[in-house]
């Protein structure tokens, strides 16, 4: 979710639909809203209201410096984790 916000601010509907469209990511898109609000509480994202071209103003989410740091940490961890799993899996395939 933070990675999704790394380049641009998005509004809730957009974030949720994008993640929901990725196969195997989420079961209920609605559960992503509590996650967003948790990220906000943790200071990883911030919100601003923007006028939309159609309808009422929308709440846009953007990543904070704290969020960027958390994302960078996560990417490092994730790479390490997938590399470890890959090496075990390939060893298993050989053996």
């Amino acid at each position, binding site marked *: 979710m933070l990675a999704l916000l790394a380049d641009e601010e998005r509004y809730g*509907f957009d974030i949720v639909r994008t993640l*929901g469209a990725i196969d195997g990511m989420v079961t209920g898109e*609605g559960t992503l809203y509590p996650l967003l*609000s948790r990220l906000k509480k943790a200071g990883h994202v911030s919100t601003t209201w923007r006028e939309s071209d159609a309808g009422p103003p*929308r709440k846009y989410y953007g990543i904070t410096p704290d969020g960027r740091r958390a994302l960078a940490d996560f990417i490092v961890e994730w790479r390490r984790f997938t590399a470890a799993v890959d090496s075990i899996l390939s060893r298993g395939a050989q053996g």
Partner: protein
Amino acid sequence: MMTTSTHPLAAGYLRRLERAARVLPRPQRDELLAEIREHLDAGITPDATEADVRNLLDDLGPPEAIVAAARPEGATALPERGPREVFALIMLVTGLPMILVGWCIGLALLLWSPLWTVRQKLLGALVFPGGYVVTLGASLLMPVGSGPGDTSEVCTTADGIINCVDVSSGSDGLYLWPILVVVVLVVAPLAMAVHLYHAAGRRAANA
């Protein structure tokens, strides 16, 4: 324009969410409802068919699941065990400060608190209605009503339920039966209170 508030399916979904979200603290509930309402507003275009709306709602998932995802937020999801729980137990056990009134306030506090399960609330309500004020007051009448060698029935009323106890006091073990009853009447509510006190603490800590 067909918006959230006018589309019956979306309105029904929001009502369900609202009902499920009652367990959340106020600010969190309002925020969640606003987000989902916005989602529906953005997702339901004026030319959306019923199938479109149903798909959008299916993708969101059941409202109960959304609320469940919002819940495990540490201590904010459930309040700490506080004076409400302590007062509830004291009033339920003693029935003070006033006969029946104290117990009824205790009962209301018991039912109001989110820290107890339905079973625990039932236990608190049933052991024993009226509190000490009623049960002890009634049981103290027992030995008076049955002299040695008598066979009599002592009835106590608690909340409209009439409990009749056959008091047959023979030559020996004169007051054994009433004493036993008194002990149970004194100990059981205390045990109930201790149990519920710890249950509330555990519930708040695990939230």
